[in-house]
């Protein structure tokens, strides 16, 4: 199996490639592209929110004034942008961009495999994702606009084109695109699970797996169990929209016309949707926490504290994530007893989450921290996880949820705990593994600038949102100027928009650094971070099959940093135990 050097053409190397490392890069670049699209959308609607009534003046500054030529940002377009921003960030960037990149890149490299179990299925997974991307983006250009009923696409709003223009062709394309997306992520997920369970190199027992791989394994299992539910949920919606069934619809009059639908319930949709939707939150978060565990250990020059507890916490979080979906639905009129059960299970998640935070803090304690840009972002993740996790105690408590449900408090909460934690984790991953991906180093100082700018701006954007929520401001309002009770909130909105636009500029620094380093960056050495995991034993030049000779044999866990009695402050996993040495 060692001879994997068959002839590569441009097409087999860069396009229809079955090498997991190239597929990872394809996911990364597509994810980054979508992140830029999603971020620009948020910049446009933040301008509107800070300047209700005057936003069109600012939109004139956009090159060519294209937004105003298209009629300005009316409420329908605002909702379309909010919907697409959510869809893109949740699914395209933080699911496919994050998991797709790092599961593909790290799983074979860190477990000592030559490639994924099926390179072909892996390639299919990317190309399904790619077609999904094209379909989603094409929905931006249909006449009635893209889907605009919120990323949660609750029917009847999403089922009836008469209810909102975006529920016409745009919604059909959205459903088609998500279907392709789910197919792609299922193919990928199954492949990840099979690979991790079957292709670990000799000596790589489950107890020696790096935490990144553990996190990616659990994420893949969550995805495989929950995405099919979204698929069926979307399929039933398609039936209701196109074939006149009544799964979700009942007793509706729209535009003066009484529809024939009877007996369905939109609440059924919500149950199905959130049965995916909540695990989805952890599909987003867990890979980031896995990356962060690795980056913190390497750069603290210390073993991750409580390895077993970390794995246990991941498993417990994953299990609980399947029985908490109802906390998104406290206000739907479901039986209050059911609400109590969901409150109970939801607040339980705080326990493994707290354990993870304490373990990160214990890892930093008495460390010898090396502040690479990746390490800065890893610390940023822990900070966001603390800040955003705590407000979860408010939202998960059904009694308190009555008054903050669907307000900006929620927007602040999930952007910090899920958005920031995950995107910081993704940045940490990119900075950390860039030398392995491209054989070059990213510029350190631009990395510092990127982190500090982003860190300050992100809290400037999302922290004030809690106050908007506590003032009672509902989310997804085109403007809050129609209620005298919200008149005092315009200052807060201006601050948020200022930080949002400033934060966007700092992302340009990252994009610049990324592209610059690929072409002009300084050459990376084989193991620039002095890390223990197996990916750093591969040659700098990318080869199909990862290791030129035999596969490495694993002799120890991944976290022997600063182990007493050792010459260096790191001992790679393939170094045999010394005589009399105990395995951690």
């Amino acid at each position: 199996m060692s001879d994997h050097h068959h002839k590569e053409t441009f097409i087999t190397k860069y396009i229809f490639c079955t090498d997991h490392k190239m597929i990872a890069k394809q996911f990364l670049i597509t994810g980054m592209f979508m992140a830029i699209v999603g971020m620009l959308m948020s910049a446009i609607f933040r301008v509107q929110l800070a300047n209700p009534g005057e936003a069109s003046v600012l939109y004139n500054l956009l090159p060519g004034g294209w937004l105003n030529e298209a009629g300005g940002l009316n409420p329908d377009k605002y909702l379309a942008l909010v919907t697409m921003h959510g869809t893109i960030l949740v699914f395209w960037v933080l699911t496919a961009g994050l998991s797709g990149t790092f599961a593909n890149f790290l799983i074979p490299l860190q477990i000592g495999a030559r490639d994924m179990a099926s390179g072909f299925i892996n390639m299919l997974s990317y190309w399904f994702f790619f077609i999904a991307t094209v379909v989603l983006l094409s929905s931006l250009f249909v006449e009635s606009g893209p889907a605009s009923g919120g990323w949660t696409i609750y029917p009847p709003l999403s089922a009836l084109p008469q209810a909102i223009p975006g529920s016409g062709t745009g919604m059909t394309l959205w459903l088609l695109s998500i279907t392709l997306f789910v197919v792609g992520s299922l193919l990928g997920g199954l492949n990840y699970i099979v690979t991790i369970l079957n292709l670990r190199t000799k000596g790589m027992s489950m107890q020696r797996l790096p935490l990144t791989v553990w996190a990616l394994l659990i994420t893949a299992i969550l995805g495989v169990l929950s995405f099919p539910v979204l698929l069926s949920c979307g399929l039933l919606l398609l039936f209701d929209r196109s074939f006149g069934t009544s799964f979700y619809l009942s007793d509706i009059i729209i535009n003066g016309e009484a529809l024939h639908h009877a007996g369905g319930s939109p609440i059924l949709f919500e149950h199905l949707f959130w049965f995916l939707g909540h695990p989805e939150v952890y599909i987003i978060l867990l890979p980031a926490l896995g990356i962060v565990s690795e980056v913190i250990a390497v750069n603290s020059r210390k073993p991750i504290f409580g390895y077993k507890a970390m794995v246990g916490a991941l498993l417990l979080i994953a299990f609980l994530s399947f029985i908490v979906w109802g906390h998104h639905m406290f206000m739907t009129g479901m039986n209050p007893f059911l609400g109590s059960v969901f409150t109970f299970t939801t607040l339980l998640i705080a326990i493994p989450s707290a354990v993870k935070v304490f373990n990160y803090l214990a890892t930093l304690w008495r460390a010898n921290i090396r502040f690479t840009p990746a390490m800065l972002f890893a610390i940023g993740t822990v900070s966001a996880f603390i800040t955003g996790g705590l407000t979860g105690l408010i939202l998960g408590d059904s009694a308190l949820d009555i008054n903050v449900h669907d307000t900006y408090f929620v927007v602040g909460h999930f952007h910090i705990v899920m958005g920031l934690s995950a995107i910081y984790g993704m940045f940490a991953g990119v900075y950390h593994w860039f030398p392995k991906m491209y054989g070059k180093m990213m510029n350190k100082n631009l990395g510092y600038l990127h982190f500090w700018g982003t860190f300050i701006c992100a809290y400037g954007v999302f922290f004030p949102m809690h106050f908007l929520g506590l003032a009672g401001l509902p989310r997804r309002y085109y403007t809050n100027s129609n209620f005298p009770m919200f008149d005092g909130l315009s200052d807060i909105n201006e601050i948020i928009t200022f930080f949002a636009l400033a934060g966007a500029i700092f992302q340009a620094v990252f994009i610049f650094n990324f592209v610059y380093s690929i072409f002009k960056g300084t050459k990376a050495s084989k193991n620039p971070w002095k890390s223990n995991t197996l990916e750093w034993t591969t040659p700098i030049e990318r080869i199909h099959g990862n290791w030129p000779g035999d596969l490495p044999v694993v002799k120890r866990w991944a976290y022997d940093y600063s182990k007493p009695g050792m010459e260096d402050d790191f001992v790679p996993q393939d170094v045999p135990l010394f005589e009399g040495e105990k395995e951690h």
Partner: protein
Amino acid sequence: MTNILIALVVILTIAALVQLVRVNELLSEITNKDTNAVTDDDNKKNGILFLLTIPLFMGFVVWQMVTWDHLLLPPASSVHGAEIDSLMKVSMTLILVVFFILTPMLFFFAYKYRGKKGNTAYFFSHNNKLEVIWTVVPTIILTVLIVYGLKTWDRAMNTNVSDATVIEIYSKQFDWTARYSGLDKVLGKSNYRLVKGKNVLGVDMLDKNASDDMVVKEVHLPVNKPVLLMFRSRDVIHSAFLPHFRVQMNCVPGLSTQFAFTPTKTTAQMKESEGDDFEYVLLCNKICGSAHFNMQMKFIIESEEDYNKWISSQKTLQNTLTLK
């Protein structure tokens, strides 16, 4: 033309940046072999920045709490709302205390344990005692919080109230309508297929309970009397949100939902403490289409006398529908 100029400026800026970074890297390559390796100096700089983050971040949080305090919702104007407020106070205090301990701790560790050449980290891979402590303590605190929360939830969700004023809140894109049950305190049956002309709610006039129902566009309620709201929707999901009373419930087509509460402060009282332009308002809190942001209805809480005066001046449905 301006577009071409803008594009040109952008391209030139990027080109200039590339050169700048390149020059920078070449310069440091002369003095230091590995330009992008992290030095003690980098560790010190970033460590100090983390240290500075503590007062700046904590200060920013405190500044927001002080400056924007007056913008937050006033204390609840309902019986169950006051209980929610107490629970909120307890939870908020708890999370703020944890926040103000853990966040500075994280950044302080980052500063304190910044790397130096020659230093060695302390090999510390696990400690069962510590791990048990920080699993058990959160568990105990959460148990208390869960029990307290569920008790409040049970009381807030109790719709089994005797002698309540029964009102139907009917939502559609993009307004609200209310229907009082009248003297019999029972709402007449309704069916969406009966919506026609003036019968905007589709009330079944053959039902004897329907004739004294009253349809209004503004809700008046007597203070300190329980009220039971029944929600219906004509088209898509809406959410009836009365933030001042800590009341929220989705209005779902095909499903009847409800919420009971007792208002405790009149609109006049609130105008005294909150300013003359204060009004209780019902807003929509579930995305429902273009004018979602402008779906509102006034609620007026008044003395029982005033309420009786108002309600007796309202036309019954029977009257409205038969009058030409």
